[in-house]
């Protein structure tokens, strides 16, 4: 195998697999930009994956089969929004500590998805999933074509969402409000911004994206479902937000780095070089830490009020 095909293989597998992480991490970025730290991402993803899967599973042989994927994506997004709002109720309205509430949400989402799946479906089950949509023309470009232009619709949309979320965050009134309530909620409040509402919106957005990330896992990536489908990817997405310093472009970079490292380690194993494979499996995790340690920049800080509830009446 030539180096070029090796690289092209690694990339063409790694890039699509970054999508779920990317979507979830972008969602978490909106949460954190608004000052809310949501460790429950994992649970929302599990629900999203489950609901994304359900229509495809039940409608497989019905006349509605053509709409199953769309229905699944919508259901996943909707459930994500609802769970995001539930999290908002706990952390914004009742001001519950966010870390622990996040773990609660993770358990709730994961548990609900698993319980219902167990009851209505049973064991690991495949579905047709999202077809890949090679872009005419572009997908024929050698090397780059299969790498970048033969993915499914959700993947294109996810990558498209990187500039969109940049625009949303930095160029729209809504993004301005999100950033303001995450940095200095009291100032936003005195300027007539409804801090609670804005944080609810951010969490709904975060939930939506996490739900879609889940749906991508079951519909776009695995094309099947089992209750442990998320397998910690939600936590990795949260970590990637720190890696990406709350910026869509960096988050894209982090998701790609992680996924490509992942497909790289698999490719190395497949090549048959003899060494304990456990160390190969570790590679992406080690790499993320190392890259962050080497490129640290003290100037970049998180949203100043990250993790803190806001109460207008309280002085400190």
């Amino acid at each position: 195998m030539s180096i070029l095909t090796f690289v092209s293989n690694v990339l063409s597998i790694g890039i699509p697999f970054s999508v779920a992480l990317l979507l979830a991490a972008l969602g978490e970025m909106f949460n954190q930009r608004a000052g809310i730290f949501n460790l429950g991402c994992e649970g929302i993803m599990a629900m999203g994956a489950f609901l994304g899967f359900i229509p495809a599973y039940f409608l497989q042989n019905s006349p509605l089969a053509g709409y199953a994927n769309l229905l699944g994506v919508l259901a996943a997004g909707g459930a994500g929004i609802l769970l995001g709002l539930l999290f908002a109720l706990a952390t914004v309205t009742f001001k519950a500590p966010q870390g622990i509430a996040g773990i609660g949400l993770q358990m709730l989402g994961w548990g609900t998805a698993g319980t219902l799946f167990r009851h209505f479906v049973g064991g690991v089950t495949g579905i047709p999933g999202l077809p890949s949509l090679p872009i005419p023309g572009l997908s024929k470009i050698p090397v780059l074509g299969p790498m970048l232009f033969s993915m499914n619709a959700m993947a294109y949309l996810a990558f498209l969402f990187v500039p969109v979320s940049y625009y949303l965050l930095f160029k729209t009134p809504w993004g301005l409000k999100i950033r303001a309530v995450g940095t200095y909620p009291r100032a936003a409040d005195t300027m007539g911004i409804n801090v609670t509402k804005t944080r609810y919106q951010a969490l709904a957005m975060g939930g939506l994206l996490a739900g879609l990330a889940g749906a991508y896992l079951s519909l776009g990536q695995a094309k099947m479902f089992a209750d442990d489908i998320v397998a910690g990817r939600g936590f990795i997405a949260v970590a990637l937000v720190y890696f990406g310093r709350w910026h869509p472009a960096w988050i894209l970079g982090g998701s790609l780095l992680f996924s490509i490292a992942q497909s790289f380690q698999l490719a190395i194993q497949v090549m048959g070089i003899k060494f304990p494979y456990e160390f190969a499996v570790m590679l992406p995790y080690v790499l993320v830490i190392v890259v962050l340690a080497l490129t640290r920049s003290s100037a970049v800080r998180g949203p100043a009020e990250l993790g803190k509830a806001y109460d207008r009446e309280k002085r400190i």
Partner: protein
Amino acid sequence: MKPSPRILYIALVSLAAAVAAIGIAAIVLAILGANVFDTFKVILTEPLKDIFGITEILVRAIPLILVGLGIAISFRSGILNIGAEGQILMGIIAAAATAIALPGLPKIVLLPIVFLAGALGGAVWGAIAGYLRAVLGVNEILSTVMLNYIAAQLYGFLLRGPMIDPAELQTGSGTPQSVRLPRSAWIDRIIPGTRLHWGIAVALVLAVLVYILLWRTTWGFKMRAAGAGAKAARYGGIKVEQCLLMAMVLAGAFAGLAGAVEVTGVHRRAIEGISSGYGFSGIVVALFGGLHPAGIVPSAFFFGLLLIGADMTQRMMSIPANMVLVLQGAVILSIISAKMVINDPYAFDKFSRALSRRRKKDESGKTTGETA
């Protein structure tokens, strides 16, 4: 006699929280077609009905207390350590390896050494995240999440390779597990026929020691100051970075010790799946207990009850195993919300004023009614 506003307030909020928790779980149970009331009855009462249930609750509480204590130290020092899961694994490995290497020592000598080794294993793993944060400025949430995965692989590597039970290779079953620890490294059971072991005493003693460490020693003062106000602490001459590192070392040591106690008290050999999610439940227990040993101990008992009770519903009510998670999640979300509302002086102030207005109105209504 009218109840005092404070009691009424707490009662009402708690009731609302219970209704919310049961409500969330009830939705899922209703979809399954299970009986909501019976399910909760099983969870909350069944484990307490016999000595077996009660001891199993305590068995779960032991690692939860230990991990929770470590989490309390790190959170109090301003580090969000979610790496207990990995630290537990490293503790198990270190403890098991030590016990296996020193089979000849008498229990009274060996057990402390094994505990220390476990603590050390966890401490080393914690120190990595501590160093990354204190010296290289790597966010600890990121590093601890990643280190959990790395630890899991390292653990698997050691159990499949260097530490595997030779019998597993000989008979060909090849299950990744170490040899059985020498009997001199077993923690004794307290009540024969149950799994309750003396690790509970270790956990309770350490709870007292952690209280002393955090609130009665200069090191505790330093670490809490660094966590509560890093800037002021630095101005006050406290080496904040040192405190962060120390906190992570201690948190790791506690998680590692939890692993050591679990392997010597319950499993008696290093196998996969020992931790059973204690690393995350331990965070919940610690926060639930207000990051204070006096709260962590009861909160660990409560979560032990929840785990055992929910598990029982699987067999008694044929409810899928994942329902445990739904229940835990619903309970966590509603109880912490209620706790915040109960402790919010502003909300209580509004409540008690509304209450007194109402009572006044009632009274004046009554008196005018009487005079009329």
